[in-house]
Each structure stands twice: as structure tokens, then as C-alpha cells.
């Protein structure tokens, strides 16, 4: 068996932009994910960071088969999953689960916690026989740090952090091998965020899970990830080990992103070099030619508009998609 539990190659997801009331015409495509490749190793956490609109959540949806892909390939344990249907797809869903961002909208308010966490067993009855389910659900609640006696409560009786734990318990119910976490802590307060991050870390050790951890908060991603991929406008611009990427970033976008994160130490005020990016992210309907970051990049040359830089190792030890990649430390 190979080391990689998931292999993604040239994954593409375009959403058509349609106009017209009765006769809809397609006038363009939102290139949400536009040729993304990476591997997820067994037992590791791959962090995916990027600003809003970079395609990181669409990537999660496609990996989960919640959205059909436009092109490319995703292999889970060597098996292509993009074409799976029916019972084969259902079987796959046992192995890949998702934790969603908003604990307020991702739980059905009319179902009890027991029903929510136990629902996967209804769809996959082979995992837990009927008589056994209540016990299993209570065990799961215990694992994620909730009181098993609260099995008959409704989501509104829990706080945000507790709800996120319910979402995690539901994802764990079928003993998956991979969990895709789509911004699991961004809706939570700092003190609660730390609790949920520690829980995710503990569960990984206990159950040998692999995570794809999507977030916009670079500090959170660094804390949990072994490797990190940085996305910009539907593409991975840099990917590498957590230490290499944070301490020796080579892509200008990664450097700007890292330097813009405020450091909670007022004594470093004014001493850090902060790279200020001009303007906003361009529209993914009509991305810039060549390198997509060139419109905001201070290094941009003519070649950047003509040739799309490949994601490959130019300097240092990890790949980056920049013609002029060079190492630069921006984190104090």
C-alpha cells in the first residue's frame, strides 16, 4: 500500500455563469479550482490556506463528492473516486467525512444530538446494529468531550464550541480514515478555538486520522498542520512542510500573506517588515493571464503575463509557482 491516502491530480471545478430568464446562456465560468494537485499522506494533516474566493472550500466540496468535478482525478487509497456511483460512493463516504465551518447552520435544529450523531448509522447500518446505536452515540459524545447524558438535547441548548464538538462526533461516527475540516474553528472565540484544536489533535493521535485542514487563519493552520498548501485564485501557489513554508516561503503571495498576520506582541510593532498588497483579488471568472498573482505582485515582469509559472522546486526544498521564487523570512 502506498504512503498516500489521497492523491489529487489536476483537479478542476468550474461553475458556469448563466444569464437569461427562460433560455439560459452560459457566458463564462467561475474557475473556482483550476488545476490543483497534491498528496495527502496517511496520518498527516495537510493545511490549505488562502483568502476568501481562492477555492479552498470548493476543493473540500469536490473531494467530498458533494460537487461534481469538471476534470482531473482524485484517488483514495489508489482508487479513482470521481466517477463512483451508488453503493460504491456510499462506501467511500464511510472513509471520508467532513466537519463544516458554521456550527449554527450545519446541525438540524429539529433533531436531537442523538439523532444527529446517530444518523450516519441509519445510512450505514452495517457499522452499528440497531440495538447498539445509542451506546455508540454516547461513546462518541464522550470522546469529543460532551456529556453523554445530553443525548436527548437539541443543538440550540449548546454553545458554539459544543456544537462544533457535535459536528466532530458526527464526522467520527463511521470511523473514517480522512476528515476534511472546512474552517472548523473560525466561528469560535479564542478560548474555545484552542479547546477544539486540541480535540482535533487528540483525535488524530487516537484514531490515526488524516486531515485536510482548510482555514484562512495562518496561525491556526500552522499549529495543526504537517504540510501546508497556499491557494490563490483556484491554484496552489506553494506547498511544503510546515516549517519550510512558514520559515522560508518562496512565493511572493505566501510572503505577503504571512507578513500581514498581526503578531500578538506590541514590542515587535514597527520592527517587522510588512508587505502591503495593493488592491483586491481579481475575479475568478476572468483571471489574469500567465501568473494569476501578477496584478498584485511587486516582482511582476513581462514573462509573468505570458507564461504561467509551474508549481515546481526552484529554490529551497519545496515547490512554488513563481518565476522569480526566492527565499525570504517574514515571520519574526
Amino acid at each position: 500500500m502506498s504512503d498516500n491516502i489521497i492523491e489529487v491530480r489536476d483537479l478542476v471545478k468550474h461553475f458556469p455563469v448563466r444569464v437569461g430568464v427562460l433560455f439560459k446562456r452560459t457566458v463564462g465560468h467561475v474557475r473556482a479550482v483550476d488545476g490543483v494537485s497534491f498528496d495527502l499522506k496517511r496520518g498527516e494533516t495537510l493545511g490549505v490556506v488562502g483568502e476568501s474566493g481562492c477555492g479552498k472550500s470548493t476543493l473540500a466540496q469536490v473531494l467530498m463528492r458533494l460537487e461534481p468535478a469538471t476534470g482531473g482525478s482524485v484517488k483514495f487509497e489508489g482508487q479513482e473516486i470521481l466517477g463512483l456511483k451508488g453503493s460504491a460512493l456510499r462506501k467511500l463516504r464511510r472513509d471520508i467525512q467532513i466537519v463544516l465551518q458554521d456550527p449554527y447552520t450545519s446541525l438540524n435544529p429539529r433533531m436531537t444530538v442523538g439523532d444527529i450523531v446517530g444518523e450516519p448509522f441509519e445510512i450505514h447500518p452495517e457499522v452499528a446494529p440497531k440495538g447498539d446505536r445509542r451506546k455508540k452515540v454516547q461513546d462518541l459524545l464522550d470522546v469529543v468531550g460532551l456529556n453523554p447524558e445530553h443525548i436527548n438535547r437539541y443543538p440550540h441548548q449548546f454553545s458554539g464550541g459544543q456544537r462544533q464538538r457535535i459536528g466532530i462526533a458526527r464526522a467520527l461516527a463511521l470511523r473514517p480514515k480522512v476528515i476534511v475540516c472546512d474552517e472548523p474553528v473560525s466561528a469560535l472565540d479564542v478560548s474555545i478555538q484552542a479547546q477544539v484544536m486540541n480535540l482535533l489533535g487528540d483525535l488524530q493521535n487516537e484514531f490515526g486520522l488524516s486531515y485536510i485542514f482548510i482555514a484562512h487563519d495562518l496561525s491556526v493552520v500552522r499549529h495543526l498542520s504537517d504540510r501546508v498548501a497556499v491557494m490563490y485564485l483556484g491554484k496552489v501557489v506553494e506547498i511544503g512542510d510546515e516549517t519550510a513554508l512558514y520559515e522560508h516561503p518562496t512565493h511572493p503571495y505566501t510572503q505577503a500573506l504571512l507578513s500581514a498576520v498581526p503578531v500578538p506582541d506590541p514590542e515587535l510593532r514597527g520592527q517587522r517588515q510588512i508587505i502591503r498588497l495593493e488592491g483586491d483579488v481579481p475575479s475568478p471568472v476572468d483571471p489574469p493571464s500567465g501568473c494569476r498573482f501578477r496584478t498584485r505582485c511587486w516582482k511582476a515582469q513581462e514573462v509573468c503575463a505570458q507564461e504561467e509559472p509551474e508549481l515546481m522546486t526552484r529554490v529551497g526544498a519545496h515547490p512554488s509557482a513563481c518565476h522569480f521564487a526566492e527565499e525570504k523570512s517574514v515571520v519574526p
Partner: protein
Amino acid sequence: MSANTTKPAPGRTGPVPGAPLLEVDDLFVEFRTRDGVAKVLNGVSYRVEAGETLAVLGESGSGKSVTAQTIMGILDMPPGVITGGEIRFHGENLLRASTNRRREVRGSGIAMIFQDALSALNPVFTVGFQIEEQLRVRRGMSRKDARKRAIELLDLVKIPNPKGRVRQYPHEFSGGMRQRAMIAMSLALDPEMLIADEPTTALDVTVQAQIMDLLKEIQVERHMGLILITHDLGVVAEVADRIAVMYAGRIVEQSDAISLYRRPGHPYTQALLDSLPRLDLKGTELNTIKGLPPSLINIPSGCPFHPRCPRVQDVCKTEVPAQHRPAPGRLSACHFAEELLSGE
């Protein structure tokens, strides 16, 4: 905070010369709901001078936004009820001022920007119209003059092509642009004091950096007082002169920024700093604050933080801690503030 404060004579209104720009003094607010009375603010005091940045730090439900809404006079009443305290602007107690006087202060004395610019802007009017409206109503400007001023303001907040943008609707602006437009709107009447309620929480980091730069620049240029309400300890470290940390409707610690980060004077502040994942440090396990923030309907006895506090003693469960002064310029509502600072 009373010894060195010039309090106006009771009943007197109007500004007092030499008084601080803004003082919140022992403010109490309750929300009377069906489930009971939520004690949202329980004696909040702080003050801001011209040119100073006070960061109000706290988690959701700590009362930081309610304080701001009370200062602005935009608190929903009911369910909100102000049960005590004063808000003094140039020494004048705003809570006793007439509706007309309050309207005068709002916008030209104290202005506010909000977290979610998309819902704070009216979607059916152009951005220009929304800026011009206050100039025409409050300053009596003609449409033409107001338009000219609106374009200047958009230019001031560095919106490219302000002449074209002034005619556009909020949905045509990006998130960062909208926040800029809202800053332009808040500056229209030249306020002396700006309250920014989570101004960058909904924005991406690169845009957040742009907006914080802009706010800082404008503040320095105009020598404005700035209250920055946020839960982000990173943003606070970058811009604050002084910090007030709120918990369960109380200010638990007040200090200048550097001393607070160097050595917190309250266990809650300490715990917040410890639970933060850091970009520059990679640890394995984060320290967490056990438990949950208290329900404001049923605030724990004694120190409200005691059920979650690692240093809890018997006295904490029964006695509400007074504001200690463990060091010059620092306040801490902890029975053991002095020990905390001396590192015992």
C-alpha cells in the same frame, strides 16, 4: 477613576473645558428578556483622550459592543435598560442629554463603523448618496457641494476612481472597499472620536492590514480618539496604546499595551494569551481555558471568572474583586493582581 476626574455638577449639561474626550463611568446595562434579566454591563469604566487608541478586547458576550452602542445611543431599548452610570463626552453626560443634543453629537462628535459593511450600508442607495445624506441634512450643503465632498472623502480613504465609484451601489464594491466607504461615511462630519466595532473581522488578512493602516493614518492625521473593539489579540498588539479586557460585562484589566503583553495582570488575560496559536511559535498543545463563558442571566458569585480560573481560591467564590492598582497606570479586577505581577 474618580480622584483625578473633573465631574460636572449634577444636572449640568454642556461641555466642560479640560475634561477628557470621552469617559465611560460605572456603566450598568441590563437586557430584560423572557428568560430573565441579563446583566450585560456591570460597572464598566474607561476613558479615551484625543489622539489615543483604546482597544476593548473580549470574547462574544463580554459586553464590548453593548458599551459602544450605549455610547452612541443606538442600544435597542427595550430589551436594553441603562440602570446606572454616566457617559461623558467633553464632560457632558450624554445619558442625560436631550434627543436633539444626542443627534448632534452622533456623527460629528462620535462616529462609529461596524463589522459587517454590507449590512451596515443601505443596498438601495448609492454609496455617494449615503455619504451625502448626512452632509445635506446636518451641514445644509447643496447636492452639488455634498457630491464634491463625498468624492473627496472616497479619495481620502484611497478608493480608486472616486468620481465613478460615488455613483455605484454597495454590492458593486468588494469587502475591503465597502469597509473603506463606511470609514469615509463616518468621517463626513469630522468626528473627534471614532468607535470601530470589529472593523476587520470579516476581512482577509491582506485587506485587514490595508484597513488597519488606513484607520491608523486617519487617526494620527486628525488627532482623533479611537476605540477599537476586537477579539483579535494580534490586531490589538499592532495598534493599541491602551487595552481594556472585558469579561462578563466587567473590565477585568486595563493597562498600556506593552506591559499587558509582557506580563498580564489578570488570569483571564493570561489564559487568553496562552490559548492563542502563534504564527511564530509552534507548540504541540495549546493551553485552554476550561469551561464556557458564564451566562449573563446567572453570573457566578464573587469573581465571575472563578469557575474557569487556574488560580482560584476560596475568597474568589464569595467576594467580587475590587479594581486593584498593581502598578502605575494598570488596573486589575483580581484578588491576586499584585502577586500575579510580581510573578509569585
